[in-house]
């Protein structure tokens, strides 16, 4: 075989030699294709595996950690939450609507394949600045695609986050997280076992869509990548809705041994992974696979990434039942093979053997790379920059108005308005809160959901930045009154073959791991997306964190806005933030540099616990974490109906108003309960600063008794709410 063949499929020469060794003979083209996708970064995690091993993955709440299609955490009452996040960055860069839509479709299949009914979707998005037309095109296409799929299938999209930064121009990030609910006995697994059990494909027919998508996700975007694509996958949410109902019915009827969605690398990866988990072999007869097009080769059938398909192994004798259920939902089911006990993936076409590979060669024997890491040159240089003597640029009022009109900080309503966030009638806290909250019917409980990652922090200090992403998620969960439970992640980085990128990856993961350990939120699963580069320039490292929290009693949900006059406003935490890595510095000084403030995870944990404890006592009226834009912006976010008057004392107005430092939460409480709060904080040794009082229709900030900011709500709320709409030239 010519080296060109395997190289084009993304295999290195050493990898090809390894295949020769494993097979003891030359592979045919189909076999090379199968190896290529199974050994792609996307399917094999060959580069990330050694690093991911360091994540804490256990805890009393974890019912299923990494390794299955999605993680599962227990929420009591025999119920569990299933959740996972996944990227669809490259497909979305090429065809934003379909790329994002199929991203949602794919992650939802990961959830219902576990036996859970999906109850929510979140979307974590990163784009280049909206000053560029192409980024607007990508944003509107991606948002329409997420809505197009989620709205139609009827799963509410309840949250997410969006940042705009030039490093994402040309390489947007589209990470979708899905969450489902199940009863413990319904947990299903992606496993093929029991010799002779039939193997069936159910759902959509197989076409020539997205062949080599998995490989494609594992290369940098270039001019040629478009040409490499055989056909863009098109999502069919209607089909998936039917497929979902049918699958849940089959799982409820206990008709299946195993079930797995066909995602990247389609039939190949689903069959191989299921057989791998079951220590079995699998035999497939390709002529039995229902097809959408004629003349498809075995290669195309095995590698097609047609959407809305699942591979199932029913219990022997229950094929008819599977077929009946699928037919009732207007879908097809076909037996295409059987489980064997010889540990081989055997592929036949019309009875003729076309491929035979030991399953283990594709899974366990996949190469693992320990890539070299090297601290990038920028790191120390940027870290050494100090901004202590920087002066406020213009008046506080001008800066304030500029910051809240920045799309990264401004309201994301233009986006989430396009998502049905209420279908299912379980959404208690809608998008716009710190975390979304869904009620669990039949209980008093709710779950809180959020996604977070400030990649500028990660760029400046990958270790701290990774930890901070987890911290921010935990704070958002706590601010609605929920206890952080566990996380899923989606690790978006550049080309890991570059030592500087691998260093970012390694450091960021270490930070994530440490924060998860201290905060008690194990990693239950996730996804790695490398090669996020355009023309050699990498995105800012973006380890997206999706967190789930539990709220025992829905009557204790906390809002993030003032709801009455005279609420006493306090800050939990330090009054002063830093300018390093802040939105202020980026936007007003056009600099992204500096040393991030030191991070004490134990202290963060204590503050979160303190906040939750206060909330249990029922004395808090609102809570909101201070993130991008600092104290002034956080206050603007809390003043929706009622304004506030705040008094700040000390030095360095700039750092106090606009500096950033995670671990700070603004709370409000009635005047009557204020002494109790002050006493508890003192006892617990938690820094607490009285800021002022809610009321009126302006946001007024006094600095050392002098008014430095006094803006009517009627002036800044519209700027905050319409910032994105204005740039997209359309009404929110």
């Amino acid at each position, binding site marked *: 075989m010519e080296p060109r063949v395997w190289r084009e499929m993304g295999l290195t020469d050493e990898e090809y030699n390894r295949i020769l060794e494993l097979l003891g003979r030359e592979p045919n083209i189909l076999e090379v294709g199968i190896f290529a996708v199974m050994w792609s970064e996307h399917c094999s995690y060959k580069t990330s595996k050694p690093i991911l091993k360091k994540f804490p993955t256990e805890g009393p709440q974890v019912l299923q950690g990494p390794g299955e299609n999605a993680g599962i955490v227990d929420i009591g009452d025999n119920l569990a939450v299933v959740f996972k996040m996944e990227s669809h960055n490259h497909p979305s860069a090429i*065809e934003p609507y379909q790329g994002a839509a199929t991203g949602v479709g794919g992650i939802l299949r990961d959830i219902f394949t576990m036996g859970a009914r999906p109850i929510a979707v979140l979307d974590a998005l990163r784009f280049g600045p909206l000053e560029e037309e192409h980024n607007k095109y990508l944003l509107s296409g991606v948002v329409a695609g997420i809505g197009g799929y989620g709205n139609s299938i009827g799963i509410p999209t309840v949250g997410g986050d969006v940042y705009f930064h030039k490093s994402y121009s040309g390489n947007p990030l589209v990470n979708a997280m899905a969450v489902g609910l199940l009863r413990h006995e319904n947990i299903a697994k992606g496993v093929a076992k029991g010799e002779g059990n039939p193997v069936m494909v159910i759902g959509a027919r197989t*076409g*020539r869509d997205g062949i080599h998508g998995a490989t494609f996700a594992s290369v940098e975007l270039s001019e040629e990548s478009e040409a490499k694509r055989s056909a*863009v996958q098109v999502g*069919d949410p209607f089909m998936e809705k039917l497929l979902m109902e049918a699958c849940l019915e089959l799982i409820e009827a206990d008709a299946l041994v195993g079930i797995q969605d066909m995602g990247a690398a389609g039939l190949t990866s689903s069959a191989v992974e299921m057989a791998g988990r079951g220590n079995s072999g699998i035999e497939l007869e390709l002529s039995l696979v229902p097809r959408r*097009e004629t003349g498809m080769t075995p290669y195309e059938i095995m590698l097609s990434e047609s959407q809305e398909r699942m591979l199932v192994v029913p219990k022997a004798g229950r094929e008819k039942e599977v077929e009946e259920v699928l037919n009732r939902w207007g879908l097809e089911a076909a037996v295409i093979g059987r489980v064997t006990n010889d540990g081989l993936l055997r592929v036949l076409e019309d009875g003729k053997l076309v491929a035979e590979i030991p399953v283990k060669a594709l899974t366990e024997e996949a190469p693992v790379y320990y890539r070299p890491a090297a601290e990038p040159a920028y790191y120390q240089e940027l870290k050494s920059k100090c901004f202590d003597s920087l002066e406020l640029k213009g008046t506080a009022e001008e800066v304030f108005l500029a910051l809240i009109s920045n799309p990264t900080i401004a309201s994301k309503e233009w986006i989430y308005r396009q998502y049905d966030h209420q279908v299912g009638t379980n959404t208690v806290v809608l998008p716009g809160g710190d975390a979304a909250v869904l009620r669990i019917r039949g209980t008093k409980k709710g779950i809180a959901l959020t996604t977070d990652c400030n990649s500028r922090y990660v760029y400046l200090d990958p270790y701290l930045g990774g930890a901070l992403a987890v911290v921010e998620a935990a704070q958002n969960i706590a601010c609605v009154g929920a206890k952080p439970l566990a996380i899923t992640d989606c690790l978006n980085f550049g080309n890991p073959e570059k030592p500087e990128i691998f260093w970012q990856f390694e450091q960021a993961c270490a930070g994530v791991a440490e924060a998860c350990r201290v905060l008690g939120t194990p990693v239950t699963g996730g996804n790695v997306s490398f090669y996020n580069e355009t023309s050699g320039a990498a995105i800012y490292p973006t380890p997206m964190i999706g967190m789930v929290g539990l709220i025992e009693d829905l009557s204790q949900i906390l809002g993030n806005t003032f709801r009455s006059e005279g609420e006493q406003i306090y800050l939990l935490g330090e009054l002063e933030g830093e300018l390093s890595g802040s939105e202020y510095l980026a936007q007003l000084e056009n600099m992204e540099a500096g040393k991030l403030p030191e991070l004490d995870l134990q202290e963060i944990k204590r503050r979160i616990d303190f906040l939750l404890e206060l909330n249990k006592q029922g004395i808090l009226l609102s809570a909101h974490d201070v993130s991008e834009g600092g104290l002034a912006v956080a206050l603007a976010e809390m003043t929706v109906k009622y304004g506030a008057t705040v008094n700040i004392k000390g030095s360095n107005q700039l750092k106090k108003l606009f500096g950033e430092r995670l671990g700070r939460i603004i709370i409000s409480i009635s005047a009557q309960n204020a002494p109790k709060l002050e006493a508890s904080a003192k006892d617990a040794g938690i820094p607490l600063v009285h800021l002022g009082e809610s009321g009126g229709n302006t946001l007024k900030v006094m600095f050392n008794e002098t008014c430095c900011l006094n803006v009517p709500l009627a002036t800044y709320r519209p700027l905050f709410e319409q910032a994105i709409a204005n740039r997209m030239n359309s009404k929110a």
Partner: protein
Amino acid sequence: MKAKVIVTLKKSILDPQGSAVERSLKTMGYPVDSVRIGKFMEVTLAEANKAKAEEVMDEICRKLLANPVIEDYFFELEG
């Protein structure tokens, strides 16, 4: 000058709309083999010169009316 534009999904691209219509026509008992759905557009141009109009239309189709990643287009000028 007027242009009629037809935009269709490329052959290999899945057409969920068309398939759904196809299935329901079949269920309703019509002798239908397949349905594919695309777009039809009428564009009135402020350009009297045919050759120029042709050029403009081709550019418009490529840039905006069709998505070359998944669609083909075809147009015809009139009048």
